[in-house]
């Protein structure tokens, strides 16, 4: 029932950067790391992006430390801001390099967001790396002025940690993260050896195999659920997962108690703790 109505791969295919279920099943070269890290939001320096870009032979997507680069977060100073009716472009200088950024202005909330952004301001950016004609720009989802300047050091420490994690700690764990084992401890297929890649999306939405809690958790770990800092409203979860609000709220309560998810700005928005 559920599986036939909801194709996770298609619904969250984020601009073509996420492979569909069929691709994953058909392509044995698709490693477990790619499969898993597809959900990641990477804190990066411009230097890391530049280096990976040079090694990628101008392919549409590339990897850093063995992880597919999709959504990224950067901290730096805004320069050369140019505002137009439909979009705002600027250069982000994070001290390691400079990268062109572009933010589409579609709604009032977008224009309010970019109006306060001026040259010389430190900002935190969430965005998507996009390559076009050999040029790589950052397509910005969210841009926020930094008010506590400890966030700058914190960001670069994050970059170091994630780099260390992806290059060393992840390998020590044989390619299967503790996150996955933790998150999927109820589903036996996930406990396979590293040689059997955890096909996260295939079979994920089969009815009866997973309870609502697991579905909620999986949903909140999708990259699209993490695009917004606020997390996801429970109405949206209920609609996407097609479960009643009563059942959903009791599952959410359990997950909160287990520390796997948390409420954000109010009692109705939730995020997965794994994704921060």
């Amino acid at each position, binding site marked *: 029932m559920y599986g036939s109505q909801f194709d996770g791969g298609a619904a969250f295919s984020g601009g073509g950067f996420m492979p569909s279920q069929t691709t994953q099943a058909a392509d044995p070269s698709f490693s477990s790391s790619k499969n898993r890290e597809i959900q990641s939001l990477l804190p990066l*320096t*411009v*230097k*890391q*992006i*530049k280096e990976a*870009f040079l090694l990628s032979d101008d392919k549409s997507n590339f990897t850093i430390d063995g992880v597919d680069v999709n959504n990224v977060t950067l901290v730096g*100073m805004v320069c050369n801001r140019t505002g137009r009716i439909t979009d705002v472009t600027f250069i982000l200088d994070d*001290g*390691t*390099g*400079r*990268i*062109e950024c572009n933010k589409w202005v579609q709604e009032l909330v977008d224009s309010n967001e970019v109006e306060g952004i001026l040259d*010389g301001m*430190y900002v935190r950016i969430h965005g998507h790396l996009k390559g076009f004609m050999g040029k*790589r720009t950052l397509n910005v989802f969210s841009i926020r002025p930094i008010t*506590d*300047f*400890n966030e700058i*050091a*914190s960001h*670069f*420490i994050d*970059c*170091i940690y994630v*780099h*260390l994690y992806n290059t060393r700690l992840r390998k020590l764990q044989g390619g299967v993260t503790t996150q996955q084992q933790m998150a999927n401890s109820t589903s036996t297929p996930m406990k396979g050896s590293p040689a059997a890649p955890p096909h996260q999306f295939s079979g994920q939405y089969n009815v009866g195999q997973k309870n609502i809690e697991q579905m909620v958790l999986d949903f909140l770990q999708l990259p699209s659920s993490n695009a917004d800092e606020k997390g996801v409203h429970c109405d949206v979860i209920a609609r996407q997962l097609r479960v009643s609000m009563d059942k959903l709220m009791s599952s959410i309560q359990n997950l909160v108690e287990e520390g796997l998810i948390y409420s954000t700005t109010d009692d109705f928005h939730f995020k997965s703790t794994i994704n921060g």
Partner: protein
Amino acid sequence: MDTSNPAVFVNAELLRLYVGPRVRAVIQVLRSDGGVVTGQSTDDNQILVKGSPPSPLSKFVEVVGIADSEKSIHAEIWTNFGDTFETHTYNQLCQLANGEFKHLFL
């Protein structure tokens, strides 16, 4: 994308290694005499910062500019960082960014 002109995270000790290139440092302002600001670096040494400081300066200021001697920076960009700042953390970052993890920054 351009990574040809980075600004290296420095404290006073690291500043000595980078005379010439662009650097970034956070100082606690001790004195400001005209165009020269004397500040305490995150490793508790004194450095001089020249240029055109904004007014008013907050207690902690980040400067980005050229290291023109072992103990001074000619700053192009001044950013007020406010009156509280974790100098210890920043200093640790300076060391990591110039040591084991230099390749992520330079």
